[in-house]
């Protein structure tokens, strides 16, 4: 029989947050905590599905503290064998008040059939308030038998309410305190301490002991311990223990309280392992400035500014052969060539071939750029997350240089390109050269053989026209120089415009690659980081 669980709003969202943590945690959260979170989630799911009408109360304690005697005293029957041999109980016994719906719960607790007992008739005896109680008598946790048996541990974890049965001899044992009591902070609502064998002490001694025990428990973080002195032998205190249990049973809240306490404890440990602190201040996305920084660094790795500059320089240098004033070139060519002097004639062609405008990325610089991004982003993070961010940033690092090279080669400048106007200007320059030659010829002829010219050329013989011819010739020369300078300026203008365009385009492509291959994986990790800490915070609130 499963009914709708009466949950205080709070447990469900926190369990959701926990499941989120379990989902995001692997590889980030300590595996031990991770396993605990998983098992708590599983346990919570199971327990909330099972009967909420029942409250599982476990009697736990060291060997010889009188768990079984107390079990029998509470149930009023000799259900669990007691004895003087230590340890006595090796299997858990259960007694159920109100059987309906208890079977699946007992199955879940893995209580063997032959150790299950029912107290249905107890209802008649005015024990109605215990209806819904499943009382467990656990084996001890501190004998040499228990070294190889975690039955007690398992059920202490599963029970809704744990009654720690202590006795005057063993109440301060390290095996109880170090392993269990120090873990109980926050579990006050679902923990009761029964100081059994009170009959062995005088009233004054008992009072002293109760004070001492209270102090001890408080020192270990149990703020308001419920301590009930009992004696299974004389029956003293058994009724008050019963009423403490009955109160918990009738509230039907112990299961939820236990889960809440466990959740709180787990949350505290998680928060201690990974303090939320400033973690949520870490941005969940890569901001623009960092992106710019990365793109800049990647551009440097490809050498975008240098490529642009080289393109411009080479372009201008090359244009000189087309649009430049030809005379200096010719004069230059007359000079002895050092390359030729070194007998490396073919090298000069190759040198021209070097400037082909190939682009490639420097892998080491790419690595450093990505490293710097990850470093800057994860500086304030927990080391585990830091390395996760680094890992994400580098997830495709091996492919980035080749992708950059490939993508940017597509836009690499075509340096052997010759625009049409260059050709036109070349023709124009040569035309001017021809005109200059003609002018020279005119002057020469006019001066030397003014009369000997054929009639078709008699104008040339006209000495009056000679100064004009000279003027024209000089002008042609000047025109060539001027147009050379003008077109060079023009080429430079075009080249720098081309360079700007090229740089923009390259930058755009670099940014695209940076986005898909670096920023996106990093942002996925950042989002995970953010979601994790958000869940952790909502778990703790």
């Amino acid at each position, binding site marked *: 029989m499963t009914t709708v669980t009466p949950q205080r709003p709070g447990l469900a969202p926190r369990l959701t947050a926990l499941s989120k943590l379990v989902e995001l945690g692997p590889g980030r959260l300590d595996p031990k905590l991770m396993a605990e979170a998983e098992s708590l989630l599983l346990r919570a799911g199971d327990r909330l599905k099972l009967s909420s009408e029942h409250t599982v109360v476990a009697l736990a304690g060291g060997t010889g503290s009188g768990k079984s005697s107390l079990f029998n005293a509470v149930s009023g029957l000799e259900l669990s064998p007691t004895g003087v041999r*230590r340890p006595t109980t090796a299997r858990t016994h259960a007694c159920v008040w109100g059987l309906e719906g208890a079977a699946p719960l007992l199955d879940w607790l893995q209580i063997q059939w032959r150790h299950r007992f029912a107290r249905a008739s107890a209802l008649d005896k005015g024990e109605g308030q215990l209806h819904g109680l499943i009382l467990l008598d656990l084996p001890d946790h501190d004998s040499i038998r228990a070294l190889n048996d975690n039955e007690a541990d398992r059920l202490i974890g599963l029970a809704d309410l744990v009654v720690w049965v202590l*006795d005057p001899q063993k109440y301060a044992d390290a095996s109880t305190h170090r392993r269990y009591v120090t873990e109980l902070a926050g579990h006050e609502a679902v923990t009761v301490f029964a100081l059994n064998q009170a009959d062995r002490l005088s009233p004054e001694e008992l009072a002293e002991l109760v004070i001492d025990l209270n102090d001890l428990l408080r020192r270990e973080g149990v703020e308001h311990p419920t301590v009930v002195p009992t004696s299974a032998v004389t029956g003293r205190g058994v009724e008050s223990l019963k009423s403490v249990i009955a109160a918990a049973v009738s509230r039907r809240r112990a299961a939820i309280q236990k889960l809440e306490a466990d959740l709180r404890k787990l949350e505290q440990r998680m928060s201690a392992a990974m303090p939320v602190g400033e973690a949520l201040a870490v941005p969940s996305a890569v901001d623009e400035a960092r992106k710019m920084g990365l793109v800049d660094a990647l551009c440097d790795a490809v050498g975008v500014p240098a490529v642009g500059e080289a393109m411009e320089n080479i372009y201008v240098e090359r244009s000189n052969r087309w649009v430049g004033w030809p005379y200096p070139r010719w004069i230059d060519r007359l000079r002895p060539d050092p390359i030729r002097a070194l007998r490396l004639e073919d090298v000069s062609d190759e040198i021209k071939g070097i400037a082909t405008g190939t682009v490639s990325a420097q892998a080491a610089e790419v690595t450093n750029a990505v490293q710097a991004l990850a470093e800057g982003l994860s500086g304030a993070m927990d080391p585990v997350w830091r390395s996760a961010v680094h890992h994400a940033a580098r997830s495709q690092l091996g492919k980035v240089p080749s992708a950059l090279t490939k993508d940017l080669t597509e836009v690499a400048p075509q340096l052997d390109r010759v625009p049409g106007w260059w050709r036109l200007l070349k023709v124009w320059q040569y035309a001017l050269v021809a005109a200059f030659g003609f002018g020279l010829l005119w002057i020469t002829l006019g001066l030397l053989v003014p009369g000997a010219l054929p009639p078709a050329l008699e104008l040339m013989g006209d000495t009056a026209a000679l100064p004009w011819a000279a003027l024209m010739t000089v002008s042609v020369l000047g025109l060539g120089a001027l147009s050379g300078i003008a077109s060079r300026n023009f080429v430079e203008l075009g080249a720098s415009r081309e360079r700007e365009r090229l740089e923009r385009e390259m930058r755009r492509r670099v940014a695209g690659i940076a986005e898909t291959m670096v920023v996106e994986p990093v942002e996925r990790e950042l989002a995970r980081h953010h979601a994790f800490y958000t869940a952790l915070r909502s778990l703790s609130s």
Partner: protein
Amino acid sequence: MNTAMDDGRGESPGEQTLRFRAITDDPPSSPPDPERDLEPDAGPDLQRDPGPDAVEPADDLTASGEPQPAKEDSVPDSEAEAAAELEPESDSEGEDPSEPEAEAVSEAVPEPEEAASEAEDASEGAGSSAEEGESRDGGEAREREEELPPEVVEALTSALGALRESVASLRFGLDLPGAEEARKASGELLAQLDDYVLPRVRMNTAPALIVVAGSTGAGKSTLVNSLAEKNVSRTGVRRPTTGVPVLVCHPDDRPWFAEGELLGGLRRLDQARSDAGPRSIVISSTEKLPQGVALLDTPDIDSVVEEHHEIARRMLDAADLWIFVTTAARYADAPAWNLLRLAKERGARLAIVLSRVQDRARDVVLKHFVRMLTEYGLGEIDRFVVGESKVADGRLPDSEVTDLRLWLAELSVDESRRAQAVRETLNGVLDSFRTRVPALAKHLETQIAFRGDLRRDVESAYLAALTDLDKAFRSGALIHGEVLARWQDFAGSGDLMRSLQLRKRARSGRQTPERIIAFRAALRTGLESVIVAAATRAAEEVNARWRHRAEAGAALAKGLERPSDDLVRHTGRAVAAWQEHVTELVRTEGVAKRSVSKLVSFDADALSLIFMVAMFSGGNVEGVPHRLVKALLGAESLRGIGAKALSDLRARIGMLFDEESMRYVQALDSAGVPDESAATRLYQATYNLEVAR
């Protein structure tokens, strides 16, 4: 009601009686009268209980000395003992050396084999007690086979001193699994050497120290109070009750403990004080305790106050005999059995007291407990049962402790037996060194090996980084990105050609073109980034490897995940210096080819850049830069410069990496692990100790 437990005891009666005989050496002054009085009282009292069982031969360790009257059946024993009892009066010195042997033989008729060993025991006992007698009386020189002649003591002391020294110098700096245990073990070893072994070897005549240990609430203090008949140790319902060990002894023995070296490291107090630190001990004395034995009430071994466990352990380490107290409710507790296992490992003389036994449960509990003990191989230990009874004023009724009192009294009078018990425990402790010290050495070796592994990790990571760099230089990985673009710029824009000039044209005072500066800078950045990337990779590699190895590695690597902050700066400086060096090389050594220099002059800055490109283009000897520099510098000089430049670069990078890896080495060194010789010293000290024994 108190009965010596007699289930499963297989000890022969002969052993005890034999040992008992050595009482002959008691100096006349030493047995105090109260004890003498006690014996006749105790004897009959005890006899009443085991009387019916007396048919069973064994089991009277608790009463082995006194109850001769009841032992008429074992004739030789009683004769021997009668003789022994007489001897103190009659025989003051000069005992015939052969006498004990002869007696031993005569007694050993039933079991010859045992007799042989017992004869040894007897002579040993006699020997040591002879020594005692000697030291007390100060005059007697006995040339019998003394157990510890002075030179042996000296040898043993010096061997132990050496062992102490080498243990004291141990450091387990790396938090490897087992390091905590090793630290604790070495601390314990040291404390035991100081507190017990060294004093015990030097003064093997000191009274026997009997340590009462056990669980909290087992009634240790109550037991000690009852035996001392004086409330020397506080009792109560609060757990844990006793925090400071309380030693109680006979007033005559008091100087031994108040001033002696035993437990020398502890502060002596006259009575328990609330401000008594963990390193103090209360010493009190009472006439009610027999001479020669001292009881030490210790803190518990299993309460929440964990310091107590350590104090208890330390006390146990200094004990000559252990009395282990447990209760009917506790006898199956895991800590109790851990302690029993320890006692067994150490070979300590042990007696067990099972207290708070209710009458109705007595038989069942006893039987079960004895079975457990037997399964544990402790079936033959002396056992005492104390019933659950009203504790008045912190003491048990006298009747409950009579057995134990007798046992103590017997130890007191029977010096040989006491000496033997002392010796057995000492031997057990010395034996335990055979395993404990090598275990420490073993862990030390683990640490040293681990440190070696970590150091190798560092070395191999940086070596791999160097190799990677070499490969990068050779494969032309450097001629990418900006370097490539600048090179294209340099070549394509005609600067390359312009940097070559015919000789006859005088150099105009031109300055280095911008492009060359940029090219140079690009090369530097490229080289820098390749080196930094390699160093980063190496740092990560070291980190990953250290983390992978153990927690301790991860802890050491903390703060060293990245290359040092100075790396980039240092690399920049190193690369710039290297470039300078190359330029200088080209300028000074590149003049070899006379035929060329007559024709062509070159700009050293530019040429060194071309040279670097050629160098980093790797195997591409057909490339422009390579052919250019070859033509300009000549193959011979090119090779020379190339080799020099490369080795210089390697050396500079090597220095950078050394600086980087030094950080890890320093982290390792600061962890503090001694070198290999420490482990060797430990083994050597153990060996020497064995030799000295």
